[in-house]
């Protein structure tokens, strides 16, 4: 099978890669680019562990081909912190102990950041709705939801 040459931007950096036509963006990130922060839970769109943004839209990277990234801007968990400085939502996940095994955490953080980039005044119901595509089998959702609500409050200076 012939390889496809793809030019894209990942977390702000111009990136080029070769991938097979059948490889998902998730495969490309993890296996070709060594960006293993994005996780695979199900491979079928159900768990959200593979969440990334494409031009700011939150999607599952397991339901998208690597080839589809051509010309788009991809955002992954690796771009959420600025160098060693954690994003406020990452700090709040630590403060609230909103993770246990951590497999789901990158997906939750990418999804939560995408929500907070849209609004700093989400209601609890909106947070729960927004994160409904992210599954966690250990922590329970309350701590996660509280961490996100608390981040929003901090960011709007409340």
């Amino acid at each position: 099978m012939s390889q496809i040459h793809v030019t894209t931007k990942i977390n702000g950096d111009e990136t080029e890669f070769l991938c097979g036509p059948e490889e998902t963006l998730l495969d490309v990130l993890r296996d070709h680019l060594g960006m293993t922060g994005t996780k695979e839970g199900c491979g079928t769109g159900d768990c959200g562990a593979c969440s990334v943004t494409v031009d700011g839209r939150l999607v599952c990277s397991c339901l998208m081909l690597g080839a589809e990234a051509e010309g788009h801007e991809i955002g992954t968990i690796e771009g959420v912190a600025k160098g060693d400085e954690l994003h406020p939502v990452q700090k709040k996940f630590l403060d609230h102990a909103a993770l246990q095994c951590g497999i789901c955490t990158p997906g939750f953080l990418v999804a939560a950041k995408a929500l907070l980039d849209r609004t700093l005044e989400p209601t609890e119901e909106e947070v729960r709705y927004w994160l409904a595509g992210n599954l966690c089998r250990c922590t329970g959702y309350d701590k996660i939801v509280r961490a996100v609500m608390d981040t929003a409050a901090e960011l709007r200076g409340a």
Partner: protein
Amino acid sequence: MRYLRPASCDEALGMLSAPDTRIVAGGTDVYPALRDRAPRFDMVDVTGIADLRKITQEDDWLRIGAAATWSELIRHPLPPAFDGLKAAAREVGSVQIQNAGTVAGNLCNASPAADGVPPLLTLDAEVEVAGPEGARRLPLGDFILGPRRTALAPGEMVTAVLVPEPPAGAVSAFAKLGSRTYLVISIAMVSVLATAAEGRIAEARVAVGACSPVAVRLSALEADLAGRPVADLNDLGLVTSAHLAPLSPLSDVRGSAAYRVDAVGTLVRRALLAALEGRNG
């Protein structure tokens, strides 16, 4: 397999004339169904066709381009007659799924539990198809033929979902019964569109999904509802088994056939009350 990304409908139709090609839009039905097997067909990704991404008003029709996503529909300003469709859109999977999945893909996939079908049936939607023989248009009810079966001929593609101007003052609602709040396959879902004047229902349209091989309008019920006082919607016996005769629900892990039919009667009254009075019955 090859991954093909046409820039125009003509280019896409050229590609589709070859054997072993498959259209992919958001991929949210196509990719999970592959289950890790490399596809044996060429993928024709229609999301790069700029015209297909648009949602526009053209004369008396709303045109939902075949590559427009559920999220784009939710954000598009529309009158209350579309509230049911928007409510259904918000129930399609999760934010991630709504950002990728398209309205047209939902119809083409032809699942009996597709959330988009009942609201679009109450809106009298039509499907615009392009193919080697030219373009044609057919009512949604004639487009979906059975589970996973549509009227698309080989080499054809959907270019848009078209919705005629709804009746003046129409309101609508969508009610889905699942085993939990988010991310579920429907046990049953109901979409209604209605107009009322002076406390009476003028026109009511009712469609039910997940209770027959293809979602259906309940025309006998619609005829009985016309002219009735809105207050009758509080009558628990309003929806009779004769009204629900077009349904043929299955019994499966999600619910028994009897439970599904019973639930539909309640969902219909609730959806109509929610639409007409802004409350749940």
